[in-house]
């Protein structure tokens, strides 16, 4: 009976060989496909199951990972979700990531190259990987003020610290609560996402930096004025300011807001033209300066630049080789001039900071799980669009706008506010965009702000930047001044 026993041994060996081949197939050859299978939650869990670092504002976590008893281990939790969603974005197992959750993902999840030494330490100590915390430049008070002031009006607010480029507030409306998309029940998340997609005015769109860019309207006159100052004009230079400005090569003319007359003499100073936002004066000024001068000035303020703060910012646009008539229109921020609210805040910040534009940024410091600083953003000069003298002159002109011009609604008692209103025609039957950009205090600015209400932001009555946007800017500036005074 020994021969059959030997054969049986061989049979058993063969059976085990089959097992070994099958195991090798699964774990090596087919492993890639299996790991990539959409039904394989492991890949998701591995990515989403680690402790993710918090996002911090004013020393307090506004987003953090809370331990939960489900396969993902942690639930991404958003305190004041709607307040910060324009910056934080969401972190969803179904729809991926946006905002800081996306741009700082490698740091938050702990996989970034910067965290190599931390990981190496963990390997030795056997600790599990923990993500780094990301501290934002936002000021909770300013953000809250901007959020409250904007309310349910459609639009956006951006506030910058002109001397550093720190983004103090970034609000877009309507907005959403990231918690709705961060749940672990796929069906619920799907439903919430579809609801958001179906909501009019797109709550998922970040109007402050990445929505549709807007025609800046009269707020662009700051750029034109800066270009004029750079070209040798001063506040008292007389501009041609007819009631109707003929546009060369066309049969149409440019008028002023509400058909008003700027000056009985058809002539006025640059300061006055800015103060009352005279279209014809700036139209004629633009044609006189020539588009290339204004274009250079605008580019110095950041137009055309692909910014990453580190959220990706839609580049603001300028017209391509405009003729005389188009130059006139562009000089008052119409025609093909487009800007993000962040871009307009940068214009204000550049003027406020004595002509030096600081690169805007949102991430202040990144610390690893042991609170060691991994990364700090140093303020950086992005460009110098104006000389100190020109900047001061333009500032004085902007103070005039708020003191006794179109921007009186931005006045704060005891504080000199510099600003510029804008009411940008959209070229269709919709209401115009209401703008306000400004900064304060004028002599030593701590905040630069831009407000836009898209197509009037849902308001009724006369839509102007002075009436609707200026009060919002005022509240944001007040909050920033209060926060500054408090610190």
């Amino acid at each position, binding site marked *: *009976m*020994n*021969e*059959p*026993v*030997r*054969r*049986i*041994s061989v*049979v*058993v*060996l063969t*059976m*085990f060989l*089959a*097992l*070994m081949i*099958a*195991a*090798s197939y*699964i*774990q*090596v050859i*087919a*492993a890639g496909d*299996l*790991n990539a*299978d959409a*039904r*394989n*939650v*492991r*890949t998701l*869990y*591995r990515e989403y*199951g680690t402790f993710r670092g918090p996002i911090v504002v004013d020393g307090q976590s506004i987003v953090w990972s809370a331990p939960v*008893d*489900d*396969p993902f*281990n942690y639930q991404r939790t958003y305190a004041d979700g709607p307040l910060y969603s324009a910056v934080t974005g969401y972190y969803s197992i179904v729809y991926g990531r946006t905002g800081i959750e996306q741009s700082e993902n490698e740091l938050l999840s702990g996989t970034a190259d910067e965290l190599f030494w931390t990981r190496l330490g963990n390997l030795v100590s*056997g600790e599990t990987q923990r993500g780094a915390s990301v501290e934002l430049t936002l000021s909770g008070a300013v953000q809250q003020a901007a959020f409250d002031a904007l309310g349910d009006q459609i639009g956006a607010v951006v506030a910058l610290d002109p001397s550093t480029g720190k983004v103090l507030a970034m609000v877009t409306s309507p907005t959403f609560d990231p918690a709705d998309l961060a749940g672990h029940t796929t069906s619920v998340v799907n439903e919430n996402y579809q609801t958001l997609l179906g909501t009019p005015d797109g709550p998922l769109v970040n109007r402050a930096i990445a929505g549709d860019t807007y025609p800046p309207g009269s707020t662009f006159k700051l750029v034109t004025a800066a270009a004029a100052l750079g070209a040798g004009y001063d506040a008292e230079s007389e501009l041609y300011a007819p009631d109707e400005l003929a546009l060369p090569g066309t049969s149409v003319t440019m008028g002023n807001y509400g058909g008003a007359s700027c000056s009985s003499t058809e002539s006025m100073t640059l300061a006055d033209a800015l103060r009352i936002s005279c279209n014809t004066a700036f139209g004629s000024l633009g044609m006189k300066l020539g588009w290339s001068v204004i274009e250079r000035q605008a580019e110095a303020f950041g137009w055309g630049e692909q910014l990453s703060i580190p959220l990706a910012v839609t580049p603001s646009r300028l017209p391509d080789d405009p003729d005389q008539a188009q130059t006139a229109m562009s000089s008052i921020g119409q025609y093909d001039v487009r800007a993000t609210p962040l871009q307009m805040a940068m214009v204000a910040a550049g003027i406020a900071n004595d002509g030096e534009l600081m690169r805007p940024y949102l991430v202040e410091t990144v610390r690893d799980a042991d609170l060691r600083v991994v990364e700090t953003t140093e303020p950086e000069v992005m460009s110098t669009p104006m000389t100190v003298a020109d900047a001061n002159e333009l500032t004085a002109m902007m103070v005039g706008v708020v003191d006794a011009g179109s921007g009186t609604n931005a006045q704060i008692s005891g504080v000199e506010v510099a600003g510029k209103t804008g009411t940008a025609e959209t070229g269709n039957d919709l209401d115009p965009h209401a703008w306000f950009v400004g900064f304060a205090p004028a002599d030593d600015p701590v905040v630069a702000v831009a407000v836009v209400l898209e197509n009037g932001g849902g308001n009724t009555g006369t839509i102007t930047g002075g009436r609707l946007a200026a009060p919002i800017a005022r509240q944001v500036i007040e909050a920033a001044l209060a926060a500054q005074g408090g610190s």
Partner: protein
Amino acid sequence: MATVAEVTVRTGRRAELGLLALTVLIAVAARGLVDYHADYLVISDMLVYTGAWVAVALAIHLALRRWAPFADPVLVPAVLTINGIGLAMIRRIDFAYAARGRETDFGQVQAVWTLLGISLAILVILLLRDYKLLRRFTYTAGVLGLVGLLLPLLPGIGTQINGARIWINVFGKSLQPGEFAKIAFVVFFAGYLVSNRDTLALAGPKVLGMRFPRPRDLGPLALVWVAAMLVQIYERDLGTSLLLFGIFVAMLYVATEQLSWVLTGMAMFTVGAVAAGAFFSHVGARYTAWLHALDPEVYRSGQSEQLVRGLFGMASGGLFGTGLGEGRPDLVPYAESDFIVASIGEELGLTGLLAILTLYIVIVQRAMRTAIGIRHGFGKLLSAGLGFAIGLQVFIVVGGVTRVIPLTGLTTPFLAYGGSSMLANWIVIGLLLRISHQARRPEESSA
């Protein structure tokens, strides 16, 4: 008394002691890793655990020295290594469940079963001084096996768990009588075949050079076939059915040396299995889940979900695994029992899985070696049958998880969580140790 013959035969006990030291090292290290990764490492606990392992290893080693000094020296270390890795893995899965709020104590229970199992093995060596005694109980064993096999079908004590009705409830504990029936059947087959092998082997028509059995000799084969089919259909357990039938055919072949028996048997089983799949939807569903596991529709219906999750787990382990305590074996249902192989594959990688499969090969080969070494026909059949039983059982379980064959409800011997399997398989090891002792023992002059 044999006083003169000074034949030096190496018992291999010293080698066994060395291997046991290695075994204890592996078992303790695995447990230490698991506790460490669960942030649960307590030095005093580890010392107790190490002490327990040393004590157990020494106990079985000394028992062998005393009562079966010539027993195979490789069997116990191989089995204990698998057992130790299994204990660590099950404890690790306890931690994984605990992290998700599910309190389980599989690890501790399994440790108790292990101790009981080893005690039973020692008891077998102590009480059964000559394996040939078992031959007297050939038909008793046959009846016991049949009873054990059919017990789960009895209303009242039989229960269905995870789709298979192979459990009975005794004093609030679930037992798989099939595991014990397996041993009884091997004893019965060995006894029956050793008496009837001549008739079965030599009579019958020759076709194509092979002697096929006479119809009237087909009785026993047909009986076992019917039993296997009943198990598959009524207990919904292809595993036990295949195991039982496979053991019988293999032993029949060893006894008769006639390949024709194997072919006849395999043909019968295949026809029966295919027919069962065609006529009984629950059997058919198992086949569908096996053949089309990744098919979205089959997966969505839930039929192949467990299997596919096991595949995902193994795939995530890759060549070297995630490391003990680093993976997510808890994502596979029954990770501690039916799918412990997938858990091993995930955390210890292909490398670890192949190592464990190799240990099983060693165990089976030692049993076969014993069968060849022993003179007595009953002993040959017994040890070959027991060895084949372990090998086939591993093949059925691991084959099910790795999609070589349809998934079944058997447990991986010594590795998976489960008391019946642990006790029964340690009894098998006890028997093998006893037979191997008698196989390797120098011929006594007084015999």
